[in-house]
């Protein structure tokens, strides 16, 4: 029994991480209809930034702030320099460019920081183990879950209670109408990339803390899983994305144990995706696709 709870806890931690990644992706998709694969490069950038700044300054908190800030800036730059000029072309053009950017940035990390990856010089948190209702959990795992919850609730409040947030949602559901009511679609897009990328940077920083390790290819598989999550969630649907993140985290966690002999962890995630899509082509929480 305890074993099952352990698996559930692990699944939840990964689910929280996928959620932080996927929120940005699903918002980009909702706004621009682009599958923003380079989002994973932003995530890896956050992870590298956290390690480099934390090791340089000796302060992990500073590293995390730097990760979010750098990710946010790069995210906005990607929109401005790459996606904005491509908006009039079919969406696959931007998607291929995005894959190219991911390959480019990942290889850039490899060349700059080396093939072996980096570790934190001083990171006591993953080995601080606590007892929680009979489960042994470490500090980073708790922080990931708390932070994901806070960020997502904050985002929910922001998009429902503030003027800018409501304008944001209005633009996602009907850009023309929102513009005619005086919402600046351009500002909304910048805001979207700034916030979504910052969350991805945070996710990267915390995964770096959890594993005490960053490597050049860390974003690669995660990027496609985050895509799987937003498709499962019904593309552009926030609530669906959250449900799908946790569901995927749990499916992977249990799947590795029960069908691990037949498929590896990444294949399980996609098998789950394909099975769900065959049953519900519009995603877990989506309305019938247009």
């Amino acid at each position, binding site marked *: 029994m305890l074993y099952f709870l352990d698996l559930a806890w692990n699944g939840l931690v990964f689910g929280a991480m996928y959620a932080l990644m996927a929120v940005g992706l699903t918002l980009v998709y909702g706004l621009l209809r682009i599958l923003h694969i380079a989002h994973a490069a932003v995530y890896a950038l956050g992870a590298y930034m956290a390690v480099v700044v934390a090791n340089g300054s000796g302060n992990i908190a500073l590293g995390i702030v730097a990760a979010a800030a750098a990710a946010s800036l790069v995210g906005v730059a990607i929109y401005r320099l790459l996606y904005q000029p491509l908006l009039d072309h079919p969406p*696959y053009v931007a998607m291929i460019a995005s894959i*190219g950017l991911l390959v*480019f940035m990942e290889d850039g990390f490899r060349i700059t920081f080396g093939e072996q990856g980096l570790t934190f010089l001083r990171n006591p948190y993953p080995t601080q183990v606590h007892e929680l209702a009979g489960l042994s959990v470490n500090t980073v795992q708790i922080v990931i879950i708390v932070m994901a919850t806070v960020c997502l609730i904050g985002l929910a409040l922001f998009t429902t209670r503030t003027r800018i947030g409501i304008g944001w949602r209005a633009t996602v559901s009907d850009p023309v109408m929102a513009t005619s009511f005086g919402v600046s679609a351009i500002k909304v897009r910048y805001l979207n990339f700034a916030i979504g990328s910052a969350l991805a940077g945070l996710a990267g920083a915390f995964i770096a803390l959890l594993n005490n390790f960053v490597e050049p290819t860390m974003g690669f*598989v995660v990027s496609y899983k985050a895509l799987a999550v937003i498709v499962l969630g019904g593309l552009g649907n926030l609530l669906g994305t959250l449900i799908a993140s946790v569901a995927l985290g749990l499916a992977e966690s249990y799947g590795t144990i029960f069908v691990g002999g037949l498929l*590896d962890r990444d*294949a399980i995630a*996609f098998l789950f995706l394909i099975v769900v899509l065959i049953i519900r*082509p519009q995603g877990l929480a989506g309305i019938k696709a247009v």
Partner: protein
Amino acid sequence: MSAYGYSVMAVMGLNVMLAVSLNMITGLCGQFSLGHAAFYGAGAYAAASFATAGAALPLSLVAGIVVSSLLGIVVGFASLRLRHDFLAVTTIGVSFLFVGFVRKQLWLGGEMGLGKIPPSGLGSQGNALLILACTLATVAFSLYVHRSWMGFGFRAVGDDEETARSIGIPVSLYKLVAFTLGTAIAGLAGGLYAYFTQFVVPDSFGFIVSVVLMAMVVIGGTGSTLGVAAAAIILTLLPEVFRFMNEYRLLIFGGLLVLVMRFAPGGLAGLGRGGLAILRGR
């Protein structure tokens, strides 16, 4: 020609076959597939297994074609239910699923792959010529399909499914046919690859290969057989020319992809058309 020359020619031929066959699915019929390497791999593994069991060259190649196109029909059925971006992500899934599955199968050699595939008996020159012949046949077939009524149907489905259906084009059937043809050719390429290298490992058919193939199609200009074939040749030769920069191969590839998409979203075919228009003084 040297042995090196033949091997470059063989790889170039295989890439042209794969890119042109993907172009049938994606360029003509508009079904975005990011899992083409999985079909290539299925063909390679099937042919390798048959060859190792003692089957003759033609039989192994046919086995590769059959296994790959069966898999293609299954994914084709998924394309009937899923549209556009959903299909793109699902085919990414197929790519990962294939590699994840093969890795864990001991009877397919697992991580180590299948080695000791018997030689085709044609020698390296014969292999390269066989591949070249298949490549030319593929290009000719693709050009023929493009001009045929079915090619018109494919393009109609790619442009606008609803309209195609309303003028009586059997959309579902055509999608399935496009997937079957495209994946069958990929399977043939896989079989030829297995005989050419005599050694297959899961990583040769990973997602990045699917991306490179899609890059060939998009850089060549989706829908244009000759543009895609040219892009496949250029993208195969480029790493050979820049071999001294091998360390930065992926960096250059990624950067090139970004730049081409950013400044020439129509690909080579788009540039070609633009150039012609300027020559004609428009």
